């Protein structure tokens, strides 16, 4: 390490960077936190084994041997009574549908086996996500089988039949028929045009009814600014692939902002090296986000400095001079460079901001107008419907409720008692509402305050549709008969309007009247069938918006921003930046164990939210990782453990929203802290940053279940990168230390196929969607916080995240890491029972039934990708997440075995998928086209970073990609283990 250039070394944690003695001692030990079996995890005391216990276990052992010799128990085989003609048991069927995991409304394909959905993948035909799907979307299949969902209608908390519920609600509604008080339908963003029209129809029956839309994490600022300037409340549809220069002020568009999968697809298309110009991304932000980690130039700054920086950028573009941006840390010079680049790329650039402040968004509109980006990289004639929330209308609703002006409240798809910043007022106001109906299928924080529950289906159980972007339609169709006694919201509303109609017909009718005429098709029947089959369609609707020059109307916004930044200069104290985490987003899916255990792509924290602070601030406060600090905001104190985060703007603390649920369910309750209460939202739109927070230490500390800091890099060149200019002059830049080593052993000969993988680290954005894809495909168990803390998480693929250089603003690298299927596999040579051996087609096979659990292989694996199965997760009460629950078991993939305790497991390169395609082709009598095999991680990748295929076939996609590719390298290639997984160097578009 000492001889190498320290500046160019990647590091994974501060401990490693500083090579602290504690760290060096820790890396020597097999187990972090020292917990060999037989030691109490809490007290770290050895567990006593008495003579009695010893005899007991011996006796049990003998008894179980005897039991094993008795005849096996009878197993039932229960066929259908009437087998549907189109179903063959044992075959997977795929249905196109729409994901409602968030409001992006991506198109999906649902894999069903024996009539139950087991996996969700992106629909390649969809114009939105184009085949990719995020972690949240893929994990939503688990929520279908969540036994914590409402299992039927409730009247004042008591189970009733649907008829009785309808009677009760109708009786109440009839009383309200002539009431002049408000009847309010409070929903999240609804992308479904049919549902929107059904709600409108329902509300039209009442004289004073309205529909209030509320997003926990809102884009009100953008909508307001467009309303102010163009006279139409519209969210632009962004096209990051059409921009050569992308500037983002705080918007994490690759991770969470508006439609992350779509944006990731677009972004990665603009970053391909084979085209003329690679796009360049500038990110101005406080906490390190996924987008910031992928930025070519990242400028960390305080949340309060962002507003004036946006203004500074406008000034610089207009006049070349900056008057308003912050002076410190060279922010101005960065803005100047950004402005120059933007001006060079007029009409081919894009400036976005996640600010919810209308003034800031007005300036952003103006900047994009000057640059001529409207109509190119952002469009308002075919705008987006993915965020519709209106902050002020919820504020007004709460005010009206408190004044007793609201008679009835229906809620659907949101949870203000948890996520509204002033939830106390909301709850108080709710008490004055006489009819309270929840249509959500969970009894969450808000729903449990309601009188009537008419639980909606899970989206995989019901008909529906969506129009995420104007002119782009998705269909949603049931893929399973309802698991519980729920009813689709559309049907509930139809019933309450006295319309006896199946919701399927409602959707169909809407499509016939509103979608079909614009489709350019001749017959509705064939159009409908095709749409249901494809899951999506496009129409040629344009809703032209009159262009107006923002220059004349933004002078007030400029004044406001200047006034605010003047005010802020004098303020003292900490600034808090609130963000959505990639896994949990706004917290709606908090009861999903896959998402809780998905490590945050940046902090690598699971099962918790923490206070991310810079190392400078940590020194100032004298706190270490895990120490709990108390943050006082608006008179309330929040206690959170510290995560020292490189790249965090000094003076700011980043906190993830979406945690601290109290009524999420058995998995999500009490995980982390709810920080929605910190939001600022008195007069204007809600602000996702807070000034003047007081921070103090508490003297206590908490365990953090982090998945990285495990294993030291030992200074090896594991991740390789270069700048674009270096690459242009030499494609092998950053990848020159390749050596050809002498082989001591005879090589494995791969006949026929030779499976391999190529991972383009230049495309990988680190979103971690592949981790959930793998978990869903391969029945990877959830182990819980305690076990993650003991570093026994089971994920077959992980996303390593490395930092390089300045810890105040490091370069970040992401590297998906799974079994490398080495030709000279070190694991194979140490297994005493031949449980891990090489296959003829180049796979490193793990044979669970042969494994006796010596763990030698994991010990000898240089990549540390082997996972030992410590507990019988599928039958152990201590791991009550989903596998041990009868409903949750239905989400398992029947083509992959559920591993038992005491065996080693690891990535199999989705051998079940290889086998499936091989058989399919063999039966058709055609040679296998290996590009047709898509392994789970590859399939889910929104940035197409992973390619799998046959290395022996020169025509395969992977062979073409790797052939003479100077960027190709193998991790730890110097060990001569000859991995089948190849990586391509990352190219950064910077000086």
């Amino acid at each position: 390490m000492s001889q190498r250039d320290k500046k160019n070394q990647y590091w994974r944690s501060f401990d490693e960077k500083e090579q602290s003695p504690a760290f060096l001692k820790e890396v020597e030990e097999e187990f972090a936190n020292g917990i060999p079996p037989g030691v109490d995890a809490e007290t770290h005391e050895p567990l006593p084994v008495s003579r009695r216990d010893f005899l007991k276990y011996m006796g049990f052992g003998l008894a179980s041997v005897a039991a094993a010799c008795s005849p096996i128990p009878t197993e039932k085989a229960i066929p259908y009574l009437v087998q549907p003609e189109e179903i063959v048991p044992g075959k997977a069927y795929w249905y196109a549908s729409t994901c409602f995991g968030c409001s992006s409304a991506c198109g999906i394909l649902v894999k069903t086996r024996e009539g139950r959905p087991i996996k969700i993948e992106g629909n390649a035909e969809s114009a939105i996500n184009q085949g990719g799907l995020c972690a949240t979307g893929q994990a939503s299949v688990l929520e279908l089988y969540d036994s914590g969902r409402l299992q039927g209608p409730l009247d004042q908390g008591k189970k009733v039949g649907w008829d009785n519920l309808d009677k009760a609600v109708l009786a109440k509604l009839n009383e309200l028929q002539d009431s002049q008080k408000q009847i309010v339908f409070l929903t999240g963003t609804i992308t479904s045009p049919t549902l929107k029209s059904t709600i409108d129809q329902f509300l039209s029956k009442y004289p004073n009814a309205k529909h209030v839309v509320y997003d926990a994490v809102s884009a009100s600022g953008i909508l307001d600014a467009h309303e102010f300037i163009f006279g139409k409340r519209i969210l632009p549809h962004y096209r990051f692939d059409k921009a050569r220069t992308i500037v983002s002020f705080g918007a994490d568009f690759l991770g969470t902002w508006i439609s992350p999968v779509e944006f990731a697809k677009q972004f990665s298309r603009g970053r391909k090296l084979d085209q003329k110009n690679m796009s360049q991304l500038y990110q101005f932000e406080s906490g390190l986000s996924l987008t910031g980690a992928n930025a070519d130039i990242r400028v960390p700054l305080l949340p309060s400095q962002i507003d004036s920086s946006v203004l500074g950028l406008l000034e610089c573009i207009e006049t070349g001079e900056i008057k308003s941006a912050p002076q410190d840390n060279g922010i101005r010079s960065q803005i100047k460079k950004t402005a120059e680049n933007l001006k060079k790329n007029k009409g081919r650039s894009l400036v976005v901001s996640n600010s919810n402040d209308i003034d800031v968004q007005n300036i952003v509109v103006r900047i994009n107008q000057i640059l001529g980006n409207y109509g190119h990289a952002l469009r308002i004639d075919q705008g987006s419907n993915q965020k519709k929330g209106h902050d002020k209308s919820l504020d007004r609703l709460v005010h009206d409720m408190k004044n007793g002006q609201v008679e009835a409240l229906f809620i659907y798809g949101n949870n203000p008692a948890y996520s509204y910043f002033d939830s106390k007022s909301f709850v108080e106001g709710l008490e004055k509402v006489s009819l309270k109906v929840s249509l959500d299928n969970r009894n969450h924080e808000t729903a449990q305050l309601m009188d009537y529950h008419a639980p909606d289906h899970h989206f995989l159980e019901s008909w529906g549709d969506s129009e995420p972007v104007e002119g782009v339609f998705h269909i949603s169709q049931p893929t399973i008969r309802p698991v519980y006694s729920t009813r689709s919201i559309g049907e509930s509303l139809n019933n309450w309007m006295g319309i006896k109609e199946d919701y399927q017909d409602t959707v169909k009718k809407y499509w016939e009247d509103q979608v079909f005429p614009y489709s350019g098709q001749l017959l509705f029947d064939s159009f409908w069938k095709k749409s249901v089959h494809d899951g999506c369609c496009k129409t040629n609707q344009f809703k032209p918006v009159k262009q107006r020059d923002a220059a004349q109307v933004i002078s007030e916004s400029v004044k406001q921003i200047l006034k605010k930044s003047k005010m802020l200069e004098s303020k003292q104290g900490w600034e808090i930046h609130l963000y959505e985490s990639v896994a949990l987003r706004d917290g709606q899916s908090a009861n999903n164990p896959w998402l809780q255990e998905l490590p945050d792509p940046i902090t690598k924290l699971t099962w918790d939210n923490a206070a991310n602070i810079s190392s400078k601030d940590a020194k100032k406060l004298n706190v270490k990782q895990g120490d709990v600090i108390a943050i006082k905001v608006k008179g309330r104190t929040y206690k959170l453990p510290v995560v020292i985060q490189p790249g965090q703007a000094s003076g700011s603390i980043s906190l993830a929203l979406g945690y601290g649920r109290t009524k999420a369910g058995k998995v999500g309750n009490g995980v982390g802290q709810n920080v929605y209460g910190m939001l600022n939202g008195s007069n204007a739109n809600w602000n996702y940053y807070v000034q003047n927070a007081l921070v103090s230490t508490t003297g206590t500390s908490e365990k953090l279940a982090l998945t990285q800091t495990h294993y030291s890099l030992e200074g090896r060149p594991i991740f390789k990168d270069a700048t674009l200019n270096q690459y242009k002059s030499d494609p092998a830049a950053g990848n020159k230390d390749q050596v050809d080593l002498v082989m001591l052993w005879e090589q494995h000969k791969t006949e026929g196929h030779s499976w391999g993988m190529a991972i383009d680290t230049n495309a990988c954005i680190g979103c971690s969607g592949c981790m959930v894809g793998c978990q869903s495909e391969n029945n990877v168990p959830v182990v819980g916080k305690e076990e993650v803390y003991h570093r026994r998480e089971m994920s077959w693929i992980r996303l390593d995240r490395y930092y390089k250089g300045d810890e105040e603003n490091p370069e970040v690298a992401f590297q998906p890491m799974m079994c490398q299927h080495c030709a000279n596999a070190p694991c194979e040579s140490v297994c005493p029972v031949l449980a891990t051996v090489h296959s003829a087609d180049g796979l490193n096979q793990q044979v669970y039934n042969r494994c006796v659990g010596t763990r030698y292989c994991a010990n000898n694996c240089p990549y540390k990708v082997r996972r030992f199965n410590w507990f019988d997760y599928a039958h152990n009460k201590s791991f009550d997440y989903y596998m041990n629950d009868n409903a949750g078991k239905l989400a398992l993939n029947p083509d992959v075995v559920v591993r038992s305790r005491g065996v080693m497991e690891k990535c199999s390169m989705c051998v079940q998928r290889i086998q499936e395609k091989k058989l399919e082709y063999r039966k058709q009598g055609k040679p296998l086209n290996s590009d047709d095999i898509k392994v789970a991680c590859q399939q889910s990748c929104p940035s197409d970073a992973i390619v799998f295929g046959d290395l022996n076939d020169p025509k395969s996609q992977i062979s073409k990609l790797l052939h003479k590719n100077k960027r190709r390298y193998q991790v730890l290639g110097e060990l001569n283990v000859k991995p089948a997984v190849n990586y391509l160097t990352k190219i950064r578009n910077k000086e």
Partner: protein
Amino acid sequence: MTRKLIFSLLILLVVGFLISIFIESASQVGNNQGYAPTQPIAFSHKLHAGENEIQCLYCHSGSERSRHAGIPSASICMNCHTNIKQDSEEIQKIKQALEEQKPIQWKKVHRLADFVYFSHEQHVGSGEISCQTCHGPVDKMAIMRQEEDLSMGWCIDCHRKADIVVHGTTDVKKVSDTGGMDCAKCHY
């Protein structure tokens, strides 16, 4: 001295014998060869497949298309039995199941461990192996029984001996020569 030698040889012999018995019996754990449970409906393959010569695939239609051969649904039985032998006690049971919407709970005869992936489609659909190769003379069984031991050794034996035509050529190879002995062909 000789007595001691004989004595220790004897002990070795006894221990060796015990070990061989142990290994023999251990290899029989989970082996269900000959298992022939009484089924809820006294269905006879001998009558249907043997005497009446009904094709296996008429009822077990998944054999060529799916990993599971499949047990026919009650409606398949009734395709014929709405006209034939309606009064039989056993047929009444099927009728009753359909009327009451209670699926028939057959006892599974051929049971493989969870960690083995066996595909009928691969063997019957693609490999064109006859059902009797593994299931024995089903057409002579009044009560269905497990004919072979279904052990891994038995599987591997066939993979070593069976011929396969290499795709796109007329070459004939053994299954084992084309990766048929790889663990991950069946274990995943």
